[in-house]
């Protein structure tokens, strides 16, 4: 009896020690959690396109799964744990609000590599990646400033976090540059994805006299509203080409595939390291979608010149002289904002009259 138990446990031990050897030949399992449904036509849709690009690139070497519509908060931790327990060796958490959940779960699974989008907390096995959306905002801000007839442009914000505030500032600075009379109206909906509320916010902006607006939320509902009211808007995160040529006159597209392909390749060859990546137009991570024929040729040329200047590094969207909303000095003539300043941005630049939510 005793000997049998001993034999049994020895066999179990052998099986266990043999497992890593088998794992070498197995596929690399990669998990994703998304904040919205893959059919949102925006943010989550783009992440899922990049996931599909991974499968195409690596074929049999990897296997991907995703969990969609995961609420930010306690549920995210459960979803991440579930992915970790089901054998995923690399996990992408694709929303800012998954930050703490990712860090917590990463602590429990030190041998799993985590990638968190748009966050700022890193660990040995947690890398972060982000895109310089504000570079794209500079380009569409220029178009918005030129296209508005009421001189009122609008912005539908999700949450007042640095990433969104950078976008509002960048859009305003560049709209103002081409149209000194421009005014910026901001509405916060406190959600990344709530089509009904996004539509109501668009309606509120339009009722306030706004005729061109940008959004930093994930659904196409604001564009549908713009279409109804004859206003103009921009594709956000995804091209949203279904609304071209009008109301969608251009778009900011997030292309995550180059980054995902690079990082998965690093896991496969064992060179993956935790680091923070912040790529922009120049790296092909932020792409400006087709500027439609509704936009006059000279405005289109101006926007494309700005895009080229940003891509080459010749122009930084936050270049002094710039003051803060309260009139205090921020950047001196020719001075450029540092990445640290940008990643903690919690103020509007001078000229924006909307109050910053507390």
């Amino acid at each position, binding site marked *: 009896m005793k000997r049998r138990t001993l034999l049994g446990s020895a066999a179990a031990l052998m099986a266990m020690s043999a497992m890593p050897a088998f794992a070498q030949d197995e596929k690399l399992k990669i998990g994703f959690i998304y904040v919205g*449904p*893959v*059919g*949102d*036509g925006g943010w989550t*849709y783009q992440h899922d396109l990049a996931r599909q690009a991974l499968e195409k690139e690596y074929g049999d070497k990897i296997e991907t799964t995703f969990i969609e*519509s995961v609420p930010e908060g306690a549920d995210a931790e459960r979803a991440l744990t579930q992915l970790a327990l089901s054998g995923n060796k690399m996990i992408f958490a694709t929303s800012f609000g998954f930050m703490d959940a990712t860090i917590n779960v990463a602590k429990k699974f030190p041998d799993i590599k985590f990638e968190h989008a748009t966050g700022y907390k890193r660990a040995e096995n947690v890398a972060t990646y982000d895109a310089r959306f504000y570079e794209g905002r500079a380009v569409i801000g220029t178009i918005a400033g030129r296209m508005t007839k009421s001189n009122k442009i*609008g912005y539908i914000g999700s949450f007042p976090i640095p990433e969104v505030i950078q976008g509002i500032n960048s859009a305003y600075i560049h709209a103002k540059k081409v149209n000194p009379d421009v005014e910026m*109206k*901001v*509405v*916060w*909906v*406190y959600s990344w*994805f*709530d*089509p*009904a*509320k996004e*539509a*109501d*916010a668009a*309606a*509120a*902006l339009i*009722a*306030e006299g*706004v005729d061109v607006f940008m959004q930093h939320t994930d*659904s*196409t*509902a604001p564009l*549908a*509203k713009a279409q*109804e009211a004859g206003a103009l808007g921009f594709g956000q995160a995804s091209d949203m080409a*279904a609304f071209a040529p009008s109301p969608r006159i251009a778009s900011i597209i997030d292309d995550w595939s180059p980054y995902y392909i690079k990082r998965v390749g690093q896991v496969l060859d064992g060179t993956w390291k935790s680091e923070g990546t912040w790529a922009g137009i120049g790296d092909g991570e932020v792409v400006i979608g087709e500027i439609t024929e509704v936009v006059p040729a000279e405005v289109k040329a101006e926007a494309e010149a700005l895009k080229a200047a940003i891509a080459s590094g010749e122009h930084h969207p936050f270049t002094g002289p710039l003051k803060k909303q309260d009139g205090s000095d921020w950047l001196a003539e020719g001075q450029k904002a540092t990445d640290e300043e940008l990643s903690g941005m919690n103020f509007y630049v001078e000229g924006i*009259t*909307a*109050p910053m*939510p*507390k």
Partner: protein
Amino acid sequence: MIDPIAVFILLLGAATPILFAALGELVTERAGVLNLGVEGMMIGGALAGFAAAHATGSPALGFAAAAIAGVVLSMIFAALTQFLLSNQVATGLALTLFGLGLTAMFGKPYEGVKAPTMMAGPLGLNPMIWLGLLMVPAVWWGLNRSRPGLILRAVGENHDAAHALGYPVRAVRIAAIAFGGAMAGMGGAYISIATVLQWTEGMTAGAGWIALAIVVFAQWNPWGVLAGAWLFGGVTVLQLRLQAAGVAVPVQLLTMAPYLATIIVLVLISARQKYGRSGGGSAPGSLGKPFHALR
């Protein structure tokens, strides 16, 4: 400054889905049935309505399909509570969860699809806004001035007495549940067809629960339901408008205001009852109680 008429027009739109759902629930509750499945029936209507409008290109057919979907879902509730005498609270909650899950599954092909545009009705308002407003006096008249309404209220106040008088308690209740389902379905479809113009999972985002709160806030009176729907709709619209106008608003405070109002109304009513002033609480006497005819 903010144009009050523009705000009022936006408010009418924001109030319409909850107005429909709450009027339907009011009739159901006046017949003595508490159906907590409003949210589930709304989301069912939102998907069925969107799918039908998309397939046929006609928003009107969409709303008809939404009403049918609401009735079908409510009949599940009716069969369980009226024939099998299951607990109404638990069954209603189950209906909400069921509706949300079912639509998430069947709604997948409709994600990212656009709805046909709706024709504006009189004064440039959506025809469904007008229908919703007309339903308020219609429901009031039906309940208080018509014979079927009298029977329905009798069934809701005291089902044993109504039964003794020879009224078909069960049939009346099933009809009331069906009416509630149809109204909730159309309210949900207003969100997908008229407000958002697309389908997304869970898009009713709690509107059904607000409708339930409004029925209590309104003290089971259709005009009170209208006031409640305008209060909720008004707060939603106003906070966005104030932000757009550049006014610093405490969003969280405004968002909780309608719920606070409901609690205050409930407290006032129970205080009035406690101190013996009559005419206060008007919850139907048999609300939520199962009925089983022994003879």
